């Protein structure tokens, strides 16, 4: 691939064997040259580096540019920094750092920290060319700026990680299921894309064993019906569901524990009859929960669709209801007889 590559020798990416210079590269080269020429004025240099960076980041939000302006603004008095003595200088630097932090906090939702790091890297790249030529004051200023950048970087990464922590608090019992599901979806999505498949064909990624376990799941036990609906297992499940809605108040629990000497009482404790003072809202909550349960109970039996049958075998609504009950109970036994009657003659069997 060496042939004819259009690479400007002054381009910073010249060492990259696959790089080919484009307009952007030429622009950068021109700027670097201009900078070398304008070595004298530190402010001009900084202004230009800021401007050049702004040119680069066309897509980025304006707030960043605002910060640049802020930085420029805050840099103006910096010229005096070198004239400030010890303590005042430190105070000034601290104040700068704090202003940086506040700006960074504002911006964290809008941009990713990566872009910041990029910018910082580029930041630190530009002046590096001149570092050996900067003397006393300018050198100190340069170092100060480096420190500020570093501080900004650290702040942003910290804020980012804090935000992540806030959003997904660690579960006491392992990784949250939702996160696991999301991670898995992503993984599957990636593999599917690699094979050119669609999400709908996700099942093609399953191994044979996994597929077999899935089939096993389909062969579930039939749901209980009739009188069996209230068997022990279903009652236990209903209780479990209700306990999920209990709001556990740990502080109140600890308070009660501290107050009551017989908190862990045995079955035969004499504290049985004595009930603690129960606040009204707890009672209301309990009553409300019972009302909710009752409403849920209404939905237990689904209303069936009314079919206008061709066959009417009742003279009345009550009669119809009765016929339905009878059919449910005896239908399967009297099927033969019914068919015979419909036909008119019995089959010889």
């Amino acid at each position: 691939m060496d042939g004819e590559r259009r690479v400007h020798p002054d381009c910073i990416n010249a060492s990259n064997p696959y790089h080919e210079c484009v307009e952007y590269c030429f622009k950068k080269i021109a700027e670097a040259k201009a900078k070398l020429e304008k070595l004298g004025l530190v402010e001009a240099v900084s202004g230009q580096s800021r401007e050049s960076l702004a040119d680069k980041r066309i897509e980025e939000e304006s707030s960043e540019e605002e910060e640049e302006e802020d930085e420029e603004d805050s840099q103006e008095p910096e010229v005096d920094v070198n004239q400030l003595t010890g303590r005042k200088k430190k105070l000034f630097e601290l104040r700068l750092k704090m202003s940086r932090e506040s700006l960074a906090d504002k911006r964290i939702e809008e941009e990713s920290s990566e872009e910041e790091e990029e910018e910082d890297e580029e930041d630190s790249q530009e002046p590096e060319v001149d570092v050996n030529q900067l003397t006393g004051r300018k050198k100190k200023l340069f170092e100060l700026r480096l420190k500020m950048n570093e501080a900004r970087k650290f702040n942003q990464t910290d804020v980012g990680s804090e935000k992540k922590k806030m959003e997904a608090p660690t579960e006491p019992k392992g990784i949250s299921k939702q996160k696991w599901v999301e991670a898995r979806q992503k993984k599957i999505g990636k593999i599917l894309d690699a094979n050119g498949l669609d999400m709908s064909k996700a099942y093609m990624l399953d191994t044979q064993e996994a597929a077999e376990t899935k089939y096993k799941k389909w062969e579930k036990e039939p749901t209980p019906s009739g009188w069996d609906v209230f068997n022990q297992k279903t009652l236990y499940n209903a209780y479990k569901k209700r306990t999920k809605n209990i709001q556990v108040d740990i502080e109140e629990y600890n308070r009660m524990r501290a107050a009551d000497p017989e908190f862990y009482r045995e079955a035969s404790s004499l504290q049985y009859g004595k009930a603690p003072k129960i606040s009204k809202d707890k009672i209301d909550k309990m009553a409300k929960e019972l009302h909710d349960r009752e409403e849920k109970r209404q939905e237990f039996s689904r209303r069936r669709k009314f079919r206008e049958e061709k066959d009417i075998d009742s003279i009345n609504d009550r009669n119809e209801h009765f016929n339905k009950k009878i059919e449910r109970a005896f239908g399967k036994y009297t099927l033969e007889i019914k068919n015979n009657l419909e036909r008119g003659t019995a089959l010889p069997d």
Partner: protein
Amino acid sequence: MVSVCEKDSKLPRPTRVKNKSPAAVQITAEQLLREARERQEPEVLPSEHSITDSTELSDYRLRRRKEFEDRVSRGGRSDVQVWVNYARWEESQKDYARARSVWERALKDHHRNHALWVKYAESEMKNKFVNSARHVWDRAVYLLPRVDQLWYKYSHMEEMLGNIAGARQIFERWMNWSPDQQGWLSFAKFELRYNETERARSIYERFFLCHPKASSFIRYAEFEVKCGEVSRARDVYERAMEKLEGDYEEAEMLYLAFAEFEQGCNEFQRARVIYKFALDHIPIGRAEELYTRFIAFEKQHGDKQGIEDAIVGRRRTL
């Protein structure tokens, strides 16, 4: 009977049927039914009548009470629902003393009906009579200690009211009756809800003293794994292995669970040892599941020699 000889009413003489063959068009039963249905007159309901003053109200109440009492005395022996409707109506009239008396009368005949107890207690709870509800639950649980639903609901009520110590006492009382697995598990879950892991552990210990079966050990070990105490889980499994030496079916389940657990901990050597131990100890006829799992395990984590050994071992038994 009207005498036909009366001169006033001259009914036409019944004509004699001449043609006794069936008509060409016969009416079907279906048609009869359809016609009957269509010609139904709407049911006559008592007219809607709004109550305007207190005398009318008391009249209405009297009337309904009489109806209910009739119904109850007529069919009350077998039908609990009539009692329930009566009591609920009294509650809707906000006459709680009467409602209670109706409930009590119902219970006199149907004290074995746990649903009736549940309905009574829930009605007290809904109307926010907490101490009455407690009283009812206490009686119910005293009379029908083997009905789990009563215990669940009683402890749930105390938990909802925030009386955790009371709820704990109820659970303890229940455990004295040695209920089945679900009862113990719900007690342990209750303790875990308040982060009392030590107590939950002691409950699990009592649990498998009461039910020395493989499933209880496995549950205990799962609990320990959930708490992150892997070494304790291992202890549990080892204790279980000692206890369940004799019973083969139980032991098989236990070995499988133990081996899976070790696989989960990435302790493959131990898992292998367990599988081999299990295969040695269980009579060959029953070890089907064990073999399949062992072979799968070896395929995943073993070397070629191991896999071959396992498969050969299996073939030999078949």
